[in-house]
């Protein structure tokens, strides 16, 4: 024990935090001498695969000290958190065995065992030491706020969103959603898949009977803010498809879809996820609910102001937005782990 302490004192401690998404991977490296941070490096790699560049970058630091710890933020789609340590009360009994659960004081987080195994296998050449739930990031980042009355806390990442309700430091509700999810995408792409735009090579025309306009635009019922509709010129443009040639029509559809996606759509998806989460929180009897007046958002990516507007104007919430460096938060969690 004493020898171990001496060894820890002699060597540098290197904490490597990896936050991955499908497009890029953030790797941050914190070098500690004792308890003081000696050096911090951050590098972003394209894609989520463990590239040779990433490996050599990480190895260049891990080779400096035997006490290097690699932390990872769980991005499994099959994860969440429940306001009890008896996870089986919330999860279906058949699901109980497929999740790895971790109990904290009064709440638990869970994640898919398969995803966890795949993650460990994927990073086996590095050897992961810690895998954290994004809900722990929320708890840690808002530790000065969660002691308050029931409040909504949101962690926004490039591709997913973690939503939690804390009241007096106790988790009351949690939801993890992937905003790049195909299902959600399809719902929000104005039902274009359902429309099945059948371009006939010979006739170069669109079978308008196949376009289910009502269904496709059903999600727009939620958009009560009329100003947001200003950006939705797509409805008019969409009509042009009927008269153009095939290429023009295709280009137009693609271009408009991209704009749609990249524009308000992403914020709308986030808004939608928050709204659905709140709806579940208020309606599901499993959760003890209290009225939520405010929402604290920790955002790790650039978020349009429209999300704040949606929440304020649609859900009448007081919105506070903070920027968060997730890799630093992951490092903070890793540092507090017993090693």
């Amino acid at each position: 024990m004493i020898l171990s302490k001496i060894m820890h004192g002699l060597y540098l401690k290197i904490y490597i935090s990896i936050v991955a998404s499908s497009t890029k991977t953030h790797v941050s490296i914190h070098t500690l001498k004792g308890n003081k941070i000696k050096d911090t490096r951050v590098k972003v790699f394209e894609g989520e695969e463990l590239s040779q560049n990433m490996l050599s970058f990480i190895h260049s630091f891990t080779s400096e000290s035997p006490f290097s710890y690699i932390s990872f933020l769980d991005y499994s789609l099959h994860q969440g958190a429940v306001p009890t340590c008896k996870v089986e009360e919330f999860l279906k009994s058949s699901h109980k065995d497929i999740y790895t659960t971790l109990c904290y004081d009064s709440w638990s987080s869970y994640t898919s065992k398969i995803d966890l195994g795949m993650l460990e296998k994927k990073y086996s050449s590095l050897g992961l030491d810690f895998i954290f739930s994004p809900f722990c990031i929320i708890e840690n980042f808002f530790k000065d706020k969660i002691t308050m009355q029931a409040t909504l806390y949101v962690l926004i990442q490039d591709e997913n969103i973690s939503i939690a309700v804390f009241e007096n430091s106790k988790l009351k509700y949690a939801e993890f959603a992937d905003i790049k999810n195909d299902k959600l995408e399809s719902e929000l792409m104005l039902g274009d898949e359902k429309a099945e735009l059948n371009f006939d090579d010979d006739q170069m025309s669109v079978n308008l009977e196949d376009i289910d306009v009502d269904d496709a635009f059903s999600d727009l019922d939620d958009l009560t803010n009329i100003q947001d509709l200003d950006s939705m010129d797509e409805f008019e443009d969409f009509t042009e498809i009927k008269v153009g040639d095939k290429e023009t029509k295709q280009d137009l559809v693609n271009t408009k879809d991209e704009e749609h996606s990249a524009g308000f759509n992403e914020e709308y998806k986030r808004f939608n996820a928050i709204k659905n989460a709140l709806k579940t929180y208020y309606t599901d009897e499993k959760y003890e609910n209290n009225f939520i007046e405010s929402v604290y958002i920790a955002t790790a990516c650039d978020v349009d102001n429209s999300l704040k507007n949606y929440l304020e104007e649609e859900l009448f919430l007081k919105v506070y937005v903070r920027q968060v460096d997730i890799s630093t938060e992951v490092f903070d969690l890793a540092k507090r782990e017993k090693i």
Partner: protein
Amino acid sequence: MTRSYISPKSKQVISDEMQLVLLFFTISITMLFLTYGFLKLKIYTFEESVVRIETKKVELKNSTLKMQHQIRIIEQESDRAEKVVTENSVLKESVKNLFDLVPDRITLSEVELNKNSLVMKGTTPSKEVYEFLLQAPLRSIFNNTYTSFYQAQNGWLSFVSTNTLDDEELLK
């Protein structure tokens, strides 16, 4: 309280090869120390036995000296005893010879035999009997012979004969 789904892997400060080398050195040093300890113990027990043997040697030496001393004493005593026995036998022989010298007619009442002298007291019927029968052989043995006579109550003569040998005669 842990927040991680997995536990950190144990960190090796020393590589496997280094561990092997260290293990080898540790075993070697341990064996050296054990050998050193064993030899030290052996040396200690050897020294102990040397001291014990030295003590025993001294004891035996003392005992030998004591025994030699005792042997010497015994030899001396033996010599003395032999000498006494010889002297006694000489004396016995002398006494026997002396008494053989004394004729039947002369009666001895007291004989004192010393180293270089013989004193005899007795009675004789007459001075002539004494001079012829006893004084003559005494003169042949002793260098000096003095005899004094005095009248006894029964008419005989009591005599005291003092005979001495010279020192030279004794040395012979």
